[in-house]
């Protein structure tokens, strides 16, 4: 999977080795779940950007406050990103646009509005791995694509209660994160943000479809 974030991280191979060796030391069906933190998330450590930030500067996840995900959590969120927004013939997947790192930026935010999302997301990631372990797998990402999809389908049907509300929140973050990238905007059909000499109203094709006369 392509990683758009340039901040140094543990490589996937190293991370997988760590996960496998750690797994060997943990009793089967233990409460300790690989690649996830406990339900009570550690408090965030970063600072707010303040009331007078540089608006022109381009920011990346991790620039303003430290990110949270462990290598395992990040792998898991990459998988979820692409279950929620998979690639198709028209546009690429959410993870190809670095949306997983946006989710990390979001839940690592020092602002109180995101704190409840942080707890819900981290708790939900743990739960996914627990469910995978109960199915006899190492963790969620080790399940087959069909098994992963089945779990998500189940979660999607109960959006009001945990862990269904976790899936809803993750969906909102991933969809919102994706459709606010240039690639996602284009996929929606947004064609603006392009300086033009003149604005001539909607094209004739659109007016015809709506039965409207041009002004």
């Amino acid at each position, binding site marked *: 999977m392509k990683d758009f974030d340039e901040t140094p991280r543990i490589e996937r191979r190293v991370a997988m080795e760590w996960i496998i060796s750690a797994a060997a030391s943990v009793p089967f069906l233990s409460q300790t779940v690989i690649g996830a933190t406990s339900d009570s998330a550690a408090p965030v450590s970063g600072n707010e950007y303040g009331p007078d930030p*540089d608006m022109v500067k*381009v920011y990346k996840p991790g620039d303003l406050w430290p990110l949270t995900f462990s290598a395992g959590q990040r792998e898991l969120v990459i998988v979820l990103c692409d279950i929620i927004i*998979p690639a198709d013939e028209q546009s690429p997947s959410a993870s190809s646009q670095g949306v997983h790192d946006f989710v990390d930026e979001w839940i690592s935010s020092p602002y109180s*509005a995101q704190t409840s999302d942080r707890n819900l997301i981290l708790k939900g990631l743990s739960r996914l791995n627990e469910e995978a372990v109960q199915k006899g797998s190492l963790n969620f990402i080790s399940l087959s694509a069909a098994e992963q999809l089945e779990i998500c389908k189940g979660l999607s049907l109960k959006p009001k209660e945990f862990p269904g509300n976790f899936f809803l929140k993750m969906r909102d973050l991933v969809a919102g994160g994706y459709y606010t990238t240039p690639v996602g905007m284009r996929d929606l059909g947004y064609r603006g943000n392009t300086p033009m000499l003149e604005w001539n109203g909607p*094209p004739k094709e659109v007016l015809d479809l*709506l039965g409207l006369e041009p002004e």
Partner: protein
Amino acid sequence: MTFASCIDDLCPREPQFWMPVISPKEVQSDYDVVIVGSGAGGGQMAYTLTMNGAKVLVMEAGRIFDPARETAMLHTPNMAPLRAMPTPDKQYGFYDSSVESGWEIPGEPYTNASKEDKRQFFWWRQRMLGGRTNHWGRVSLRNGPYDFKTKSRQGIGFDWPISYDDLHPYYDKVEMLVGIFGSNEGVENVPHSSPGVLLPPPKMRAGELLTKKHAKTLGINVVPVHRAILTKQQDADRLPAILHPGNAKAQKILAENMRSRAKCFFATDCHRGCSIGAAYDSATVHLRPALHTGNLDILPNAMVREVTLNKEGRAKGVSYVDKVDGADHHVSAKVVVLAASSQESVRILLNSKSNLFPDGLANSSGKVGKYITDSVSSSFSAQIPALENLPPHNEDGTVGQQAYVPWWLCKDHTAGRLDFSGGYKFIVGSGRRMPKMSSVRGFDRLAGREGTGFGPDLKEDARRFYGSTVGFSAQGAMAANDDCFSELDPEVKDKWGIPVLRFHWKWADDELKQIAHQQKSMASIFETMGARISREPETKNPLKVIKDGGKIIHEVGGAIMGADSKNSVTDQWSRTWDVPNLVLADGAPFPNTSDKNPTLTIMALAWRSADHVLDELKKGNV
């Protein structure tokens, strides 16, 4: 120095070099006028006064801000933290052209007298050069003749001591100076601009045209809104001579400034600020030419405590805190103008206590702080199946409002057929706008999905429903009443030790009935459009949907003008009855708000008032 060389000499991201500003050490002792506040009112005052030779100091509580360099016009949300979503630091989102500003500002509290949910007033403060004109949506509508005479026409609120005819020439002048697009539509109580004043309105978007077509069947007309955006470059050969007859220097400076402003390039939201000068803001349009007269000094970071008086009871100047080092200073002038935003000006007056004015300056009537009015507002949105799956096309236009419904029931008001007093307009919002975090919310419901949509379903829903919603935002007139006012909080002070305002707010039955009517009429248009509404129009309990006091940021009043010094604070020139060299130039002198946005009227009143100040200076009366 020409503008071009002025700009070439600048260092990037060093805004203090863009506009020469002064520090307290450089404050002069011989100003004709000191103006507190640099927004629409203060900017217009400074412009008119300096163009006609008066020596002026503009004081701004915030920092200097350079729209040309500091605004992120074409950035996409993924370039900002948290996808540019609002945070307590940037309360309208990361790219909103507001710094050090907000509903809540650390160290600068205000209070509400009531604890009740629906009796809160919310106060937006914009602490930066140009004030709220940086963030403003640029909707620029004239008050109509009826709006100045609500008492004689409908028996509510107060009549203004001026009529529409007094302000008409100033509306024309402001529109020519600022650059306003729009059209004259012949709607009752919606005045026409003089020929050659307005710039052409942009073409309507698909959703706006569709709304127009269907609303017409109900006798409701959708017309182009008026906004302070250049849809073509201003005529720098023609307008300066009209605006400054016989004043060659002013004509030259204005022509140069007009030529430095580009026309709109039909992309990016005006709320982000406009680096090319196509959208009006006070710094670009008012303060820049004012500076080039050589008659203006700008003092940023100056938090005014009070207006000081001389022995004769005339305004001597203002005392202020330099926010950079916390030191107290004083500046003197022949005339003091308060243009700090209606309620900040009220606060300064109430804090200016003396033996002569123990209850606050210019408050012999006891009316300072009284009669705050704000737009009576509710909104309604719906999804329009006809707009689904349209071929992708650019609908930015002049991003934001382009079409509106002016109040269409004046005749029913005249005939007494309505059970509420205030008319309202509504803005039509539609289009394939730049997506944000919330843009795909609600698509599960529209698609009839069970639970949370994801995967190929989600992508399909997003493509289908994006851009297919239309929203109406109604804003109506509010009559002045005794329940909505501000006063000093007896205990709470800000971080400089300046007592803060305490607000009283209560929606009247009249306003709630107006909201019910707004909801019904907006829903009726949606019905003709075959729209899918997300809820029923809220007619039973309008308190549920009315926007809280202050939330539309149209609050005016608190030092109303009138014909009688016993029940008003200023005369028709916005000059306080009690102190003849003290003038207000923001929304504070409005006896009431109308269904039109207040900013254009603030500017027209400020120009008229500045002409009067110039007259008085010339006559040696001040």
